[in-house]
């Protein structure tokens, strides 16, 4: 089964995210300026840019949280403007700010979000047990989420975001403030998810993480200035690493960081 799906992706790559000339304006300020790109199924897509470059705004439009001013976008085959409820059924989202319920226990958070996505009680129970085992969280099952350390919280938030096996998962700076070991473990989880066919759309400020992505786009002042695999980008900009690529592009920015 997995093989078959794999073959399919090779023969006719499925576009999970298609964005065409997407614009978002707040009054006279253009936060996102004619964005166009495509992301394929199972890809890990890095979405880079300085603070205030418009990453979060773009991501919020893709998630159906805000409506585009102009342009078209499709996520998981649904129009982001007119079918946002369908989009929401097929995506997972992990925001910059930790946003599971702090006053609910680990299993209760899993149960709540799984229930929201329409899973039934039995499936939730089975899958929760499996997940807690994989994360080695069995002991924390009955712990209130607020008393978990940050690394554990982020891993849990990610697992909850992909618990219902969405087509795409959007990660907004998922590893901010997390220690290097946990960051590594976190990326292992991302790879596992991608292997299962979940497309990963991730923003980050860590350039070493950018290297882990299949393809990377770099946003400057609301526009995508570069989009390619990390290897090709480094060759094109004659850079040693992604950090240099980023520095060269970010220097062009005229917009002030927030």
């Amino acid at each position, binding site marked *: 089964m997995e093989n078959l799906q794999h073959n399919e992706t090779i023969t006719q790559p499925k576009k999970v995210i298609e964005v065409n000339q997407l614009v978002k304006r707040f009054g006279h300020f253009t936060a996102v300026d004619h964005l166009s790109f495509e992301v394929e199924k199972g890809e890990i897509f890095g979405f880079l840019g300085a603070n205030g470059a418009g990453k979060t705004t773009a991501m919020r439009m893709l998630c*159906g*949280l805000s409506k585009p001013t102009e342009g078209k976008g499709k996520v998981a085959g649904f129009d982001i403007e007119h079918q946002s409820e369908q989009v929401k059924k097929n995506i997972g989202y992990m925001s910059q700010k930790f946003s599971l319920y702090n006053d609910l226990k680990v299993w209760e958070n899993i149960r*709540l979000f799984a229930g929201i996505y329409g899973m039934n009680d039995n499936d939730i129970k089975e899958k929760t047990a499996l997940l807690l085992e994989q994360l080695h969280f069995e002991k924390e099952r009955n712990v209130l989420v607020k008393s978990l350390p940050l690394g554990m919280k982020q891993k849990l938030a990610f697992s909850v975001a992909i618990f219902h096996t969405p087509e795409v998962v959007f990660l907004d700076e998922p590893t901010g403030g997390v220690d290097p070991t946990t960051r590594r473990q976190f990326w292992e989880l991302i790879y596992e998810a991608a292997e299962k066919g979940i497309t990963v759309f991730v923003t980050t400020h860590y350039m070493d993480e950018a290297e882990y992505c299949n393809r990377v786009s770099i946003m400057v002042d609301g526009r995508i200035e570069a989009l390619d695999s990390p290897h090709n980008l480094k060759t094109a900009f004659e850079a040693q690493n992604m950090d240099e690529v980023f520095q060269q592009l970010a220097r062009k920015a005229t917009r002030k960081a927030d």
Partner: protein
Amino acid sequence: MIKYLIEKEFKQISRNPFLPRLIMFYPLVVLLIFPWAATYEIRNINLCVVDNDHTTYSQQLTEKTVSSGYFKLTAFEPTYQQAMQQIASKRANVILEIPPHFERDLINRQSANVLIASNAVNGTVGGLSSEYMADIVTDFSSQIRHEWVQAGKEPPAVPTIDVVSQNRFNPFLNYKLFMIPAMMALVLTIMTGFLPALNIVSEKEAGTMEQINVTPVPKFTFIFSKLLSYWLIGFFVISVSFLIAWIVYGFVPVGHLSTMYAYAGIYILTVSGMGLVISNYSDTMQQALFVIFFFMIVLILLSGLFTPVNSMPEWAQWIAAFNPLKYFIQVMRSIYMKGSGFVDLIPQFFALVGFAVFFNLWAVISYRKSN
């Protein structure tokens, strides 16, 4: 889907260090303490007597005043000026000055004057205490006349008319019976109007609102799951209030409980709509709390809870006409005390339904705009 959301709300409420206690203790405190404190009866007024006559009649008048139970004799002063000092130093509230020759005038001329001076810094206390005093003096004079008639000294100079008043619906003028139904309305306002509003704003602040917004949960369902939880709490709290009123005060509504629950249901819709509007315009708890604080004071003071709306100036009555709490307090008092049925309360019904529609429509429109 909604099952999981309601389950979540109750788990969160039960784990909140403050909310379960508030839900339990607030109605208890409001119903056990406030009705005693928010009393209209004025007792223990400090009285200073200036007796310039020193006769049997002047002493009898003083005794009668003190034995009425409204006044507490705190001082005898030789002069009016000294008595005023008692008032200035807050040791006395009312001065009763009996002039010289009080007894002589009373016997010879069948009339005598006394001076009642009351401290009217608090207008209600001042007004009521001079009224009480005047009543006592009138009573005293008719008592003397009665004695004289019996002794055959004098024929009654003026034919007297006795006024017998009958207090309907609250025969003993028990102010607690008046306050308690209104207090219930107040409790319901806080539990089902302002608590859910604060809850919604707290989710906005925590960022969990946004997390829910990217799930397929329709916004309406999410908000509804919260409201429903607080509606259940509201009905629980009002039932507890009915029980307290019955067990502690022996008050049982004259009207039907079902009418009361029906109106409570409409009122709950109204105040939760109001709460939603507040939550839509507030991004932080602090902001929401200030708005709630402001509205709470306006709602209470213009509701007829303490002071009758009819005695307010006309412009204030117009403002009060837009106060849903006023209508619900009227409903609660009418059912509790008069036994009014649904038909008697049709105007309040339309007013409350109107507010419910208005606030909920406003809530829906402002919610869309905020996105």
